[in-house]
C-alpha cells in the first residue's frame, strides 16, 4: 500500500518530513501485516492544505490535510491507511483541482520526482521522442504554432526566439534556463523543479535539438537549496538513462546539462545579467543589441528561457501545437501557472487557460484573505508589477489586457493584501528594493531609486496641500525619468508599483 507525502520545500516548511517519519514509525509499530511504502512527491499546489497526505485506494488517491505530526497516530487508528476516517475525499475531485487545466504541472504532486519509471509511466519523454522524429526546423515551427510566449515576464514568443538561434551559424550554441525566480510571490519554477525535474530536462533537450545546441545551463537561485539538490540528482539519473549525454535516446544527438547556483542577486534574473553571472562575472546588465539569441553565453548564440517556458515544450510536442493553442484567449495562448500568495486563504498553484479573471483567482480559488478582512490590493507580476484594487478584479489574465490597464502578468504571481496594508510603505519598499538590487550601470535606476525613497518620505511628512502636491509632482517626474531612461526593466518598471499605488490608493499618501 502506498502513501504519498510531499517533499516540496513549502510542505517541508510546515513539517511534512516529521509527518512522513511519524507515518513510517506508526505503520511499523502497528505492524498489522500491512507493508506501507511512503512515496515522497512534489506538492499538488494546494499549499494551505500542506502537509497533505494521500493514500492510494481502489477508487483513487484520498487526501488528508493539513496534518500535524501529532495527528498521525489518531488518523492511522481511525483507518487512514485504508482511506477511512475524516478525509478530504478524492484529491482529483476537489474543486480546486477540478477547476484547473494542468498541462505543464500535470505530474507535479502525482509522481516521485526522481523516479524515471514513474516519469515514463506518466507520459514522460514522449515529447522528446516525437521531436527526434522531426527535423529541428519542424520542432521550432511547432513551438511557434503553439503560440507559447515566455513565462519569465516579458512574454516574448518562444518559437520566434528559437528560430533566430537556429538560423545563427556558430561552432557552439547554448540553451540556458532562467531559474532565478527572484520575484516575490512566485514559486512555480521552484515547485516544478522540486516536483517534476525531468520535464525541465526534457524541455531543454528538445530546445537543444531544435537549435543545434550541445550544452545547457540552469541558473538556479541559491535561496532554493532543495530545488538545486533535486535537479542535480535528476540530471545524474537522466545521464544514466541516456536521456542526456553524447547519444540521447540512441538518436546520435548529443546534449549535456549543468546546474549553476546563483549568489543572491535579484538582477541576475535579467537575462543578460544572468549570462554575465554564468560567465563568472559580476551580474552587470548588458546593452542590447546584440541579443542573446545571436551573441549570448560566451558570445555564442543562446536560448534563454524561463523554467515554465521550457517545461511546457514537452507537452506541446507530445500533444501537438494546435491542442496547446486551443487553450487561452487573444494572443495569450495555452495555459499559465498562476501563483496565489501573501494574505490569501487558499494559497498555491493554479494552472489554467489564460483568460480567467483576477477576481476568479483571488476570490473563487483563493477564498479571499487569510485574515478574513476585506481585500485591499493585489500585486500581480512580482516586485516590478502593479498594485491593483478590487475594482479591477474583472481583468482577464491576458498579457495585452494587463498592459492596457498599466499592469503586467509577469511570471503569474499574485500577492494579496488586506485592508491593513499601507500602500505608501509598499511604494517606498519598491524603491528601496530597486536601490538595493540595482546593478548600478545606469544613473536613472541607481540614483533614481534612492531619490524615490527620499521623495516618498517627504510626501509623508509634508503638510497637506501645496507642499504635498509639489512632492507628488516630483515623484511623477522621477517615475517618468526612470521609465524612459533606464537600461533594463529593473529601473524601467520600478515606477509601475509606485505609480499604481499612487493612482489607486492616493489616500495612503496623505500624512
Amino acid at each position, binding site marked *: 500500500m502506498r502513501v504519498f507525502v510531499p517533499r516540496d*520545500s*513549502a510542505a*517541508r*516548511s*510546515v513539517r511534512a518530513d516529521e509527518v512522513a517519519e511519524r507515518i513510517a514509525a506508526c505503520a511499523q509499530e502497528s505492524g498489522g501485516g500491512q507493508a506501507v511504502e511512503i512515496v515522497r512527491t512534489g506538492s499538488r499546489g494546494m*499549499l*494551505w492544505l*500542506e502537509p497533505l497526505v494521500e493514500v492510494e485506494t481502489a477508487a483513487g488517491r484520498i487526501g488528508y490535510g493539513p496534518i500535524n505530526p501529532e495527528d498521525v497516530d489518531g488518523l492511522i487508528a481511525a483507518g487512514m491507511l485504508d482511506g477511512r476516517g475524516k478525509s478530504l475525499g478524492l484529491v482529483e475531485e476537489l474543486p480546486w483541482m477540478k477547476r484547473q487545466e494542468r498541462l505543464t504541472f500535470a505530474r507535479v504532486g502525482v509522481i516521485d520526482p526522481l523516479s524515471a519509471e514513474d516519469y515514463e509511466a506518466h507520459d514522460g519523454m514522449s515529447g522528446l521522442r516525437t521531436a527526434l522524429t522531426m527535423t529541428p526546423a519542424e520542432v521550432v515551427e511547432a513551438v511557434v504554432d503553439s503560440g507559447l510566449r515566455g513565462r519569465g515576464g516579458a512574454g516574448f514568443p518562444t518559437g520566434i526566439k528559437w528560430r533566430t538561434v537556429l538560423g545563427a551559424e556558430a561552432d557552439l550554441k547554448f540553451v540556458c534556463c532562467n531559474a532565478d*525566480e*527572484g*520575484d*516575490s*510571490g*512566485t*514559486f512555480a*519554477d*521552484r*515547485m516544478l523543479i522540486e516536483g517534476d525535474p525531468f520535464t525541465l530536462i526534457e524541455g531543454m533537450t528538445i530546445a537543444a535539438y531544435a537549435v543545434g545546441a550541445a*550544452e545547457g545551463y540552469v541558473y538556479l537561485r*541559491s*535561496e*532554493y*537549496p532543495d530545488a538545486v539538490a533535486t535537479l542535480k540528482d535528476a540530471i545524474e539519473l537522466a545521464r544514466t538513462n541516456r536521456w542526456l549525454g553524447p547519444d540521447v535516446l540512441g538518436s546520435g544527438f548529443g546534449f549535456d546539462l*549543468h546546474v*549553476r*547556483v*546563483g*549568489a*543572491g*542577486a*535579484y538582477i541576475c534574473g535579467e537575462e543578460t545579467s544572468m549570462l554575465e*553571472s*554564468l*560567465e*563568472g*562575472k*559580476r*551580474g552587470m546588465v548588458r546593452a542590447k543589441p546584440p541579443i542573446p539569441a545571436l551573441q549570448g553565453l*560566451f558570445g555564442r548564440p543562446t536560448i534563454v528561457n524561463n523554467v515554465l517556458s521550457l517545461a511546457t515544450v514537452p507537452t506541446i510536442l507530445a500533444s501537438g501545437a494546435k491542442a496547446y493553442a486551443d487553450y487561452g484567449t487573444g494572443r495569450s495562448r495555452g495555459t499559465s501557472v498562476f*501563483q*496565489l*500568495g*501573501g*494574505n490569501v486563504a487558499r*494559497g*498555491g498553484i493554479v494552472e489554467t487557460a489564460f483568460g480567467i479573471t483576477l477576481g476568479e483567482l483571488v476570490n473563487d480559488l483563493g477564498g479571499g484573505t*487569510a*485574515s478574513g478582512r476585506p481585500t485591499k490590493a493585489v*500585486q500581480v507580476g512580482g*516586485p516590478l508589477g502593479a498594485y491593483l484594487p478590487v475594482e479591477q478584479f474583472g481583468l482577464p489574465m491576458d498579457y495585452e489586457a494587463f498592459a492596457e490597464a498599466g499592469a503586467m502578468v509577469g511570471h503569474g*504571481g499574485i*500577492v*494579496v*493584501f*488586506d485592508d491593513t*496594508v499601507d500602500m505608501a510603505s*509598499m511604494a517606498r*519598499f519598491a524603491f528601496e*528594493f530597486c536601490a538595493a*538590487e540595482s546593478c548600478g550601470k545606469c544613473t536613472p535606476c541607481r540614483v533614481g531609486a534612492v531619490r524615490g525613497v527620499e521623495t516618498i518620505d517627504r510626501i509623508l511628512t509634508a503638510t497637506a496641500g501645496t507642499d504635498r502636491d509639489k512632492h507628488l509632482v516630483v515623484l511623477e517626474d522621477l517615475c517618468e525619468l526612470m521609465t524612459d531612461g533606464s537600461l533594463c526593466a529593473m529601473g524601467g518598471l520600478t515606477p509601475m508599483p509606485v505609480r499604481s499605488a499612487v493612482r489607486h490608493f492616493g489616500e495612503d499618501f496623505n500624512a
Partner: protein
Amino acid sequence: MTSGVVVDVRAGRVREIASGLGGLRGALIPILHAVQEEFGYVDQPDVAVIADVLNLSVAEVHGVVTFYKDFRRTAAGRTTVAICQAEACRAVGAVALGEHAKRTTGCEFGETSYDGRITLDEVFCFGNCALGPTVQVGGRLHGRVTPGRLDALLGEAR
C-alpha cells in the same frame, strides 16, 4: 608561528578547490561557493589564490565577491537566521516579525549576536509565499512563523 601554518593550510586547500573546479565554464562563482561552503566565508587571502589559479586579476575576483550578497567576508555566527522581507511575506506580518527578531537578538540585519550564536539576515523571497511569514534557520525553511514560534526556533539554535 602557528597562525602562519594555519594560513598556509587554508591557502593550500583553497588552491585545491579552485584547481579542481577551474575547468568549468564560468568557474569563479562555483569556486567561491565551494570555498564559502568549506570555510564559512571568503577571506581576502583566498581571493589572491583564486585569482592566481584562474589567471584573473585580484581586482576582478574581488569585484565578483563584493557584487553578490551570498559571499561573506567574515565568519557568520553559529546559526544563520534569515527572515523573508519581500512583499508576500510583508502581507502577513514579516516586517513586524523582523523587528521582533532584531529586538530579541540585539542584531540588525547582517549582524551577528555578541555571543557569536546567531547571525540575523534578511532575504527577499524563499518561494514560500503562500505560507509566510517565512524564516530560514540554519538552512531549514519554516513557514507561517509567528513571533512565538520564532522565539522557540531562536532558542533551539545553539
